[in-house]
């Protein structure tokens, strides 16, 4: 998955990540009471139940805690990828631990489990996962192994 310059893109949901942005960040929330960081924002604290939370931009680097793969097209709805059972391309997903903040479940840009390893360094990438009838790409957040380049989150950033 790469982001093609000039293609119109929209995020899958507002408030998930800063977009458009040269260096996008996930938008989490920190509890005003106990300090627990959660993602996505906009929910009560999972530890103490307080509803007073403040928005917090999360680290765009982390460590792969675990992963798996999705080898067949998920039931649709709710999945709304523009693919079909025949054109579906397997993807991987995992939990990435953003140190000191939170573990986030996300798609991974590398679909091959043989090229993923628990403990490897990952960085945030914004990637298209679907496309609308008029060609607008729908983008979501993902994590890429550090060292793998994507247009939206250049390695030198």
């Amino acid at each position, binding site marked *: 998955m790469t982001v093609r310059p000039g293609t119109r893109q929209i995020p899958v949901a507002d408030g998930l990540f800063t977009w458009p942005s040269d260096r996008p960040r996930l938008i989490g929330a920190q509890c005003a009471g106990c300090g627990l960081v959660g993602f996505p924002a906009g929910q009560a604290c999972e530890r103490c139940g307080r509803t007073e939370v403040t928005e917090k931009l999360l680290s765009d680097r982390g460590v792969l805690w675990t*992963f798996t793969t999705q080898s067949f097209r998920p*039931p649709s709805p709710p999945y709304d990828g523009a693919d079909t059972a025949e054109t579906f391309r397997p993807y991987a997903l995992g939990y990435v631990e953003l140190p000191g903040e939170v573990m986030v479940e996300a798609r991974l840009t590398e679909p091959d489990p043989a090229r993923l390893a628990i403990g490897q360094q990952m960085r945030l990438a914004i990637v298209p996962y679907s496309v609308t009838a008029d060609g607008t790409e729908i983008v979501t957040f993902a994590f890429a192994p550090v060292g793998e380049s994507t247009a939206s989150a250049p390695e030198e950033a």
Partner: protein
Amino acid sequence: MEAVIIGVGLHPFGRFPGKSAMDMGADAVRAALGDAGVSWPQVQAGFVGSLEVYNPDAIVGRLGLTGVPLRGVFNGCATAGTALSLAARAIETGEHDLTIAVGMDKHPRGAFAADPSVAGLPSWYGQTGLYLTTHFFGMKINRYMHDHGITHETLARVAAKNFRNASANDKAWRRTPLSVEEILGSPVLNYPLRQFMYCGPDEGAGAVVLCRADQAHRYAGRPVRVRACALRSRRIGAFEVQSPSLPAGVQAPSPTVDAAREAYEIAGIGPQDVAVAQLQDTDAGSEIIHLAENGLCKDGEQERMMADGETEILGRLPVNTDGGLIGNGEPIGASGLRQIHELVLQLRGTAGARQVPGSPAVGYAHLYGAPGVSAVTILST
């Protein structure tokens, strides 16, 4: 007053075109009543669980409109634990003398598909392909294998055992034995889990009749004691299904660990006393993890246990003797009552070709599912 089980009934699990979940449920109830030697009007209260049937209590229309209070219950894959627990509790508190727990379901083929809002999750979670409970099972066992040295072959051994046990169970769905090689040769669905390492949603029903221990002599069935029922939800820091995020640096055990500890304590029975166990094997990895989470082995010990056949019917600690979820599929509302049905047969000594030798005295049943809930039941002779 202690509750005892005096009757169990099970509609076979599998696919039954043209037969409704409620008709399967009614068959299971009739079988359980027959097993106990009681008639429907003697039932004073009941608890009925289902995912697909919106009004499971409507089953009363097929059994006799006696005015009996029937309550619908639901806790995902732990639903039957709740039905049985409440049916036992109604006796323990003295409210009723004779109660019933019922579960039934009829799921469409394939992976469960629902809008994430039914679990309180945002729409994007489903749109982008993250809302599949199977992802959790793949991710949890992948990490567990990394931490505790469990191999792919051990996953396959668990599945092979459960298919083999199912082949001796005429009420099981998948009765064709599969070799470790065949299982390792099946396609990966969610790494490291392969097609033949998973259970599938299917159809079926179960029912359990309970009464006060001091009245059990009035009925036909040989009573089996309900020693403990516990249900726990996830704590902060547990690695749990359907979690867009989890806290970093905060770790808590699975609700299975909490439910198991509570159940052992209530029963005054320890893991070393368990003679036969039914553990939630949504997939082969789950059975491996649940062995440790229920206190039945140490983390990592499973590798040797599976190689040595310790969880086989003739092994030291037989697990999922009727084929488990892998061999029977999972009609969610009924699945846990299938476990109870099997344990009751084992404790009575009437499990036939799959009977655990040596007159097992303690049976252990465990359920786990979304959104991070576990139910444990301990039975004894």
